[in-house]
């Protein structure tokens, strides 16, 4: 297993171009790169004011690292990056970035989906949607 793994739990936003440049320095044999970006979306029937993400930072970092290690063992990957934000985020702000890179695209896609599934329910972040008339903690999806 020769997969570079990068994990971040942070307030700051991502720069997709910079992440791509950093990746390219490490993945000359990889032809496929999958980026997943989760972003703040508007509600169906109310107007979102903002999203508040609470995190248990140290544990979140460790859990994400474990998930990446699992993925790197399961699929033939060259590079995994997971950065998850917390704090107050506005409509359309980025929440999470998952990058997976592999020689062939199948592995990058499958690993990306796996990591996202795990992030949804196994990593200590909690989202609260604050809208015009409502305010509620998001349930799992």
């Amino acid at each position, binding site marked *: 297993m020769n997969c570079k793994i990068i994990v971040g739990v942070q307030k700051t936003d991502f720069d997709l171009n910079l992440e791509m440049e950093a990746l390219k320095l490490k993945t000359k044999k990889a032809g496929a790169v999958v980026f997943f970006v*989760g972003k703040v979306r508007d509600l169906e029937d109310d107007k979102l004011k903002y999203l508040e993400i*609470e995190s*248990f930072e*140290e*544990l*979140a970092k*460790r859990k994400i690292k474990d998930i990446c290690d699992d993925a790197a063992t399961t699929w033939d990957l060259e590079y995994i990056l997971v950065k*998850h934000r917390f704090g107050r985020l506005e409509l359309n702000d980025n*929440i*999470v970035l998952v990058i997976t890179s592999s020689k062939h695209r199948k592995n990058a896609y499958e690993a990306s989906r796996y990591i*996202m599934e795990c*992030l*949804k*329910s*196994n*990593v*200590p*972040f*909690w*989202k*609260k949607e604050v809208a015009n008339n409502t305010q509620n*903690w*998001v*349930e*799992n999806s």
Partner: protein
Amino acid sequence: MGKVKLKYFSRVREIIGKPSELIEVKSKNLQDLIEELQSMGEQYSVLKGEHFVVYSAVDQNMVTDFKASIEGATEIAFFPPMTGG
């Protein structure tokens, strides 16, 4: 046991009314700890997980068996189901 840092997140934090506290713990497992806390105030009954599931992490390891020992622990966290991603 000595002083333990208790951490609460999300709905658990809101119900208990603080993000963390440092307390002198006598109990030797989580189940007993929850009873012990409940004697300090009714808000701690949220930890019993009757309204929504409550998870715990002892020294940053997720614990599923609430009867497992917490002796020597320095940090115990309680939180509802996670909703990241």
